[in-house]
């Protein structure tokens, strides 16, 4: 914290419940300034850190020591509710971890932390998992992520699959390493959907009027619209976006869409409010494991979206060193295996596969079958042919491009 030019007493005043005299003065200052504001804008905060110099890593980590506690922000359905991995970590290191499932979608999460990070205040978390979307890029450009100290994560260097060491959205893992990857496809409930769906056309089926769930994330939904039309999202043009938007608008106006969901689609699918929906691969398996449902998942014949959720350290983290230790810990193949066994998402650690297979050999009954399935599941360990069927998010070259994209897809989800 010390290196940032922030008045510590102001910070304390804002984060604690006491309102100090100095804060009152500052806040009163806001009002006085009010008269002269008409011409004043919201400050540009881009730091232009596109190429992260190594000395910046050294600068950030200089003098940082490990604390005794980590606050970890993650998405729901991303760890066994008993948190066995975290318990092991605490037992090994003596660092306690508070794990909170506070992220339901990237835009809302970003909007929540942005005012704090912009004011250089702690967001209350040392580690957070964010998808490789627009918000991730914005965090990078705004300098909200701490540059990772690769010397503190030897497990990553040794065990991560090459594919995940140099992804387009964060070359050389300057700010992030994958937590898990997953596929956006179609989830369905066989209790109501009698003929197994095959692809995007099932999302237009009038027999499911009012029973189809779509996602509210504009990137996710845009990708689906494009794939339905045979357009590859990663190389799409604004004209393609418009075509996809037309497809999605037609779908909405036909009355089949019940609602545009963030991660709450999974509870709607569970309780029968929707029958067939856009879904994330691992959610379906975990929901079956924890709620006793029999939900199904498929990759549409037109393709699915492959995304990566990444562990990142906010620049104002109180315990970044501890967060690095935890990152390193999750790249231990045994831990990665244990996580993948439960969450059923693509693990960035290929060495986890033999461990899961041997766990399966040691297990018996239902567990054995389930673990065997995980070890050879294309949703956890996709083959090269599987990867070939998947599409990636469109990387926006400029903010203007992103604004244009939003202007096209946002009216669909808020209509």
């Amino acid at each position, binding site marked *: 914290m010390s290196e940032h030019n922030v008045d510590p007493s102001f910070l304390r005043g804002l984060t604690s419940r006491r309102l100090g005299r100095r*804060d009152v003065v500052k806040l009163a200052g806001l009002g006085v300034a009010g008269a002269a504001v008409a011409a004043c804008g919201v400050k540009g905060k881009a730091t232009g850190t596109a190429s992260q110099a190594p000395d910046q890593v050294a600068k950030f980590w200089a003098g940082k020591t490990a604390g005794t506690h980590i606050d970890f922000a993650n998405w729901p359905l991303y760890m066994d509710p008993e948190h066995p991995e975290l318990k092991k970590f605490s037992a090994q290191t003596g660092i306690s971890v508070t794990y909170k499932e506070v992220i339901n979608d990237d835009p809302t999460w970003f909007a929540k932390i942005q005012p704090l990070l912009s004011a250089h205040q702690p967001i209350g978390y040392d580690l957070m998992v964010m998808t490789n979307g627009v918000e991730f890029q914005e965090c990078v450009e705004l300098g909200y992520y701490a540059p990772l100290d690769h010397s503190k994560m030897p497990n990553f260097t040794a065990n991560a699959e090459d594919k995940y060491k140099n992804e387009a959205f964060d070359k050389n893992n300057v700010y992030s390493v994958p937590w898990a990857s997953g596929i956006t496809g179609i989830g369905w409930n066989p209790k109501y959907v009698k003929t197994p769906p095959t692809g995007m056309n099932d999302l237009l089926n009038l027999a499911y009027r009012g029973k189809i769930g779509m996602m509210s994330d504009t990137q996710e939904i845009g990708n689906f619209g494009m794939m339905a039309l045979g357009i590859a999202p990663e190389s799409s043009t604004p004209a393609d976006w418009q075509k996809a938007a037309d497809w999605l608008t037609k779908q909405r106006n036909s009355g089949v869409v019940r609602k545009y969901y963030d991660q709450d689609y999974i509870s709607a699918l569970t309780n029968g409010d929707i029958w067939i929906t856009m879904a994330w691969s691992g959610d379906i398996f975990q929901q079956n494991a924890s709620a006793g449902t029999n939900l199904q998942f498929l990759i549409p014949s037109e393709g699915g979206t492959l995304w990566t959720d990444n562990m990142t350290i906010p620049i104002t983290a109180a315990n970044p060193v501890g967060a690095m230790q935890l990152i390193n810990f999750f790249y231990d193949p045994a831990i990665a295996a244990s996580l993948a066994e439960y969450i059923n998402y693509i693990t960035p650690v290929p060495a986890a596969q033999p461990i899961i297979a041997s766990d399966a050999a040691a297990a018996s009954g239902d567990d054995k079958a389930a673990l065997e399935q995980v070890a050879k599941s294309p949703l956890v360990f996709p083959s090269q042919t599987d990867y070939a069927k998947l599409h990636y998010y469109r990387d926006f070259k400029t903010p203007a491009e992103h604004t244009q994209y939003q202007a096209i897809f946002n009216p669909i989800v808020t209509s």
Partner: protein
Amino acid sequence: MTSITDSRGQGLDRLESGERRAPRRRPRRRVGDALLHSYTWLVIVWLSLPVLVMIVFSFNNPHGRYNTTWVGFTTKYWSSKLFAFEDLTQALITSLVIAVLSTLITTILGTMIGIALGKYRFRGQGSFNLLLFAVISAPEIVLGASLLSLFTTFNTGLGYVTILIAHVMFSLSFVAIVVRARVLTLDPSIEDAARDLGADSWTTFRRVTFPMIVPGILSGALLAFVLSIDDYVVTSFTSGNVTTFPLWIYGVSKLGLPPQADVMGTMIFVAGLLIAGTNAIVSTRRAAR
């Protein structure tokens, strides 16, 4: 929600006169009467349904994350498991702390405004009334949005202080107006009498005026507390990473509310009933005296 306590109080005050004036009953009206009576009960049931559901499901013993189907009766979420969700407990504490602080500040500032508006005539009073009225009638979402615009422009960050600022802002007018209404009912001749007996204006205020407006201040304070503890909209714009009780409920409801949320909702409900009930009894007694 806000004005309810106050107007219920007024309703109670008028109770006796109302009874006295009730028109005499005609036999042929009985059928219509019965219909209206049942209709009233029907609406009461409709209004209470969500509350009943909440109370019932606070005693449910669900299997997993979803407290949506009745499984079995248990009191464990009322006792040993009540504080199992650390962040829910923390959210409730945050809500209570902010509500208490907001009530304190609002009551002091609002009472001062109420007294000034009720007791004096001064230039600019009309515009000030307009300001109070504007705060009350502005859409909540705009209150939240405009504050966020301010805080964003000045890059202040968000948290406890910004929530508190917002809560005081939107409850101030309500308290001021409730106190003002009370001040207006005072008989000025009592103050005159005090002055005639040699009391200076401060003593008159302290010993005569203030004690008489205390009921108004109390109902104003109650109003401020209720407004603060139940606020979702404005808080969601000004909270940053701080989570209050309504914010927690809203966020977690997407993936299934645990029974603890129903328990705590029920506790706030019962506490509210008790406070309001006491308030009503006290004011009825006062009126009877």
